[in-house]
């Protein structure tokens, strides 16, 4: 009888900010245990565990603490460094890594609010990057104008790719998860193909790389040559503010949230669900496309097949962690930027494999997706005593409960 089955997104969104923070803490703890368990000193200490158990614990503690300290030095502040530049460089690296992630995650978040599980940020980013690169090396214009065109191009490329999903979904009802997965493949293969044709391939090269974009098409560095941090970060911050306004103050955001929460009531109130679905995906794609420009015209300078790295997929995690709320997404993107920046230092300094960062990231998702788990770990009260939201919303409660709404 319930109008809509509770979706995965609904359940994730329903979990509170506290759960997000606790999920991070829990993931770090489990990550620490894993670091300790795979640490050589710790394993050798366990051979005489019963003779001197404290040795094992001390070794375990040291292993985890050293790794996390290295991560901190790589991501936030390097207190071991000799120059001020080297000390603050990690923080700027974190912000640099966070830049493309931030806009891509905002895109995923906007789609989530419209009830769309958009896992196509990867493909949308690639399209944005292709447009940005092409405009960047073919046109010959003065600086702000050229960069502006690059940004608009990346927005256009991503918006087309996202909008296509929205349009097919609204027209035919095809599921956006399938559509976005497919379009991710299409985008990746299109990129690989074009990088081997004169359209995008560097003249004279046999490798799949594009020409360098012109200097006038680059985001200028914000803190001089020593740091990679570029203007794209401020653009991403501005995008965050804009998305906040969109979702909290604009009529379009109102429509997006209405359609995402209850499309029947939205339709009855006269909201055009077709238009909203398409527009939400256009906006999602545009934001992911901007991340493409941040990659090429911010740091990489030229296009390769690996331009998107795992940004499009990390963006899903970041959007979930930030609970699809622009401010939450902002901090979640910084955290993930820090993971990227700190992971490398950790591996170099302590030998802890960088993969542990992936494990921690994945654990965060797991803990967010299972709030009851986090609540029981931290001994928080069960929320199921609350009045069931909409009937059928909360699957666990709905099986047995419900109000008289």
């Amino acid at each position, binding site marked *: *009888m*319930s*109008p809509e089955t509770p979706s995965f997104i609904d359940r994730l969104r329903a979990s509170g900010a506290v759960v997000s923070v606790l999920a991070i803490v829990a993931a770090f703890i489990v990550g620490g245990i894993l670091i300790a368990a795979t640490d050589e000193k710790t394993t050798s200490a366990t051979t005489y565990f019963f003779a001197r158990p404290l040795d094992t614990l001390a070794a375990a503690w040291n292993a985890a603490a050293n790794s996390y300290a290295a991560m901190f030095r790589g991501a936030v502040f390097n207190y071991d460094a000799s120059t001020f530049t080297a000390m603050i460089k990690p923080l700027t690296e974190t912000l640099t890594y966070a830049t493309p992630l931030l806009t891509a995650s905002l895109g995923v978040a906007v789609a989530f609010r419209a009830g769309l599980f958009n896992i196509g940020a990867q493909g949308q980013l690639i399209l944005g990057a292709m447009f940005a690169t092409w405009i960047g090396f073919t046109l010959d214009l003065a600086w702000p104008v050229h960069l502006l065109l690059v940004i608009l191009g990346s927005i256009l490329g991503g918006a087309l790719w996202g909008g296509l999903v929205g349009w097919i979904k609204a027209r035919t009802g095809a599921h956006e998860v399938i559509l976005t997965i497919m379009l991710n493949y299409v985008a990746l293969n299109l990129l690989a193909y074009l990088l081997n044709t004169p359209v995008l391939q560097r003249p004279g090269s046999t490798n799949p790389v594009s020409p360098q974009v012109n200097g006038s098409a680059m985001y200028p560095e914000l803190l001089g040559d020593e740091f990679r941090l570029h203007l794209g970060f401020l653009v991403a911050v501005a995008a965050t503010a804009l998305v906040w306004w969109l979702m909290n*103050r*604009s*009529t*379009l955001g*109102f*429509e997006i*949230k*209405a359609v995402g*929460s*209850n499309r*029947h*009531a*939205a*339709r*009855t*109130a*006269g*909201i*055009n669900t077709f238009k909203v679905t398409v527009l939400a995906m256009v906006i999602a794609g545009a934001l992911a496309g901007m991340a493409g420009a941040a990659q090429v015209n911010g740091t990489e300078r030229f296009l390769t097949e690996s331009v998107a790295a795992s940004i499009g997929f990390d963006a899903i995690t970041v959007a979930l962690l930030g609970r699809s709320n622009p401010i939450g997404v902002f901090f979640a993107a910084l955290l993930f930027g820090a993971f990227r920046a700190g992971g490398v230092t950790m591996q170099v300094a302590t030998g802890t494999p960088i993969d542990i960062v992936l494990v921690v990231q994945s654990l965060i998702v797991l803990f967010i997706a299972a709030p009851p788990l986090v609540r029981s770990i931290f001994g928080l009260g069960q929320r*199921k*005593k609350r*009045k*069931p*939201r*909409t*009937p*059928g*919303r909360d699957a666990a*409660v*709905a*099986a*047995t*409960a*419900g*109000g*008289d*709404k």
Partner: protein
Amino acid sequence: MKLELKGITKAFGGFVANDSIDLVVDEGKVHTLLGENGAGKSTLMNVLYGLYEPTEGEILVDGKPVHFRGPGDAMAAGIGMVHQHFMLVPVFTVAENVALGDERTKGAGILDLEKTRKAIREISDQYGFHVDPDALVEDLPVGVQQRVEIIKALVRKADLLILDEPTAVLTPKETDELMDIIRQLKGDGTSIIFISHKLREVKAISDEITVIRRGKVVGTADPSADAMELASLMVGRSVDLSLGRQHSDGTDVALEIRDLTVIDSLGVPTLDHVSLDVRKGEILAVAGVQGNGQTELVEAVMGLTDHTTGSIRLDGVELLGRSTKQIVNSGVGYVPEDRSTDGVIGDFTIADNLILNRYDRHPVARGGSLQPAFIAENAEAKIGEFDIRTQSALHTASQLSGGNQQKVVLAREFSRELNLFIASQPTRGVDVGSIEFLHRRILAERDKDVPVIVVSTELDEVAELGDRIAVLFHGKVMGIVPGNTSRDVLGLMMAGSTAEEALAEADAARLATTENDEPQLPGGIA
């Protein structure tokens, strides 16, 4: 089972929804809870069913204190609950639904549905339910789905059954059948807690009545007390149940519906060449058993149906083919019949729900930007005017009691100048005090010369409001009769007689009864 609730208190944050409630339900008795919207009835039942932990207080079953950590414990203790919105899986069969959560296995994890089927057949035969264990739930009418819920409880050996507004979604006939079932259950020693806003039912079925107001027990009432007394006890002031309204013939025809036909996804017409006129300043009530085309009629006017032909003209302008937004903006107010699906967005605040269909119009928005100050002011004003019981306009709609959600919908629709007002089941789940208020609001709209369509399956409401009454049956108009037409005639028309046939038949019946010198019974539950 004898159930005692002692000093049950349930607070949500600082708000006390149940304030040290004492209640005793004796074995084999029907105990009715009567109270306004938001009085705390459902909350109390959710506490009893283990869904909420009481803040304070104690539950005794047959004299022994019990502590429920969840519905599972409550069920184990013999308490069953039927929610107004059924918790059934539509694509499962009756047997599968009944087995759900109580799966009997033959070992090795193989479901033993045969046992469940047998249990369903036994119960079905015992109470005359006529439920086929192998039918798919989604194919069953609402009334039968409700029986499946009751069977679910009985299979789990419930000695006490909670029925929270069970009749709100039933047709009059289904309601009568439910009353018979309750009587049988009670005969077998099952205790029943019954919640309803329909005083006629309450009087017919209750052994005891407890009245709750603003979370407190304010007294008990005798089922033989008259409806007016019950209503006043509940609301805490005297309620005038008769509107004492003037009939209106209306003025010019405002809405002309011609040959309106709606074809459903299976190619079957759900509305078949319907033609109706509604005049300015009159209320056209549309009566009929649920599912005879009423929903399609109003949805077609609102531009919400596909495959629609014919013509719908409002003040000479064709509405068919226009978008819902254009229709809403041309001044059509609409109260959908299913408020939780179509009327409100549960996750949105009350304030946002109050502007759901004009969020992009001046003064709610300016240049694509919402005006939070206006939205907040508007919410405060409407909450006051419509007596919406909430602590804050920023609570979500899903935190409101059922009846208060309905008031949100009506408050929203009455927020603007209307050229046509359409209400489907406008007072479903609303308490008598508020019904009086809402009916007066609808009449006031009519008296402003607005054409009004009220669709209702409640004959009381149809008779109360309709200046003229159209009866729909199988997607066709059986006739349009004056507002004072008797319930008998309407009942016959709802079963498929034309107006003339129904009048003739009712006359014959009346002659027969007057010859026997019997007083004429009012319709409905005898």
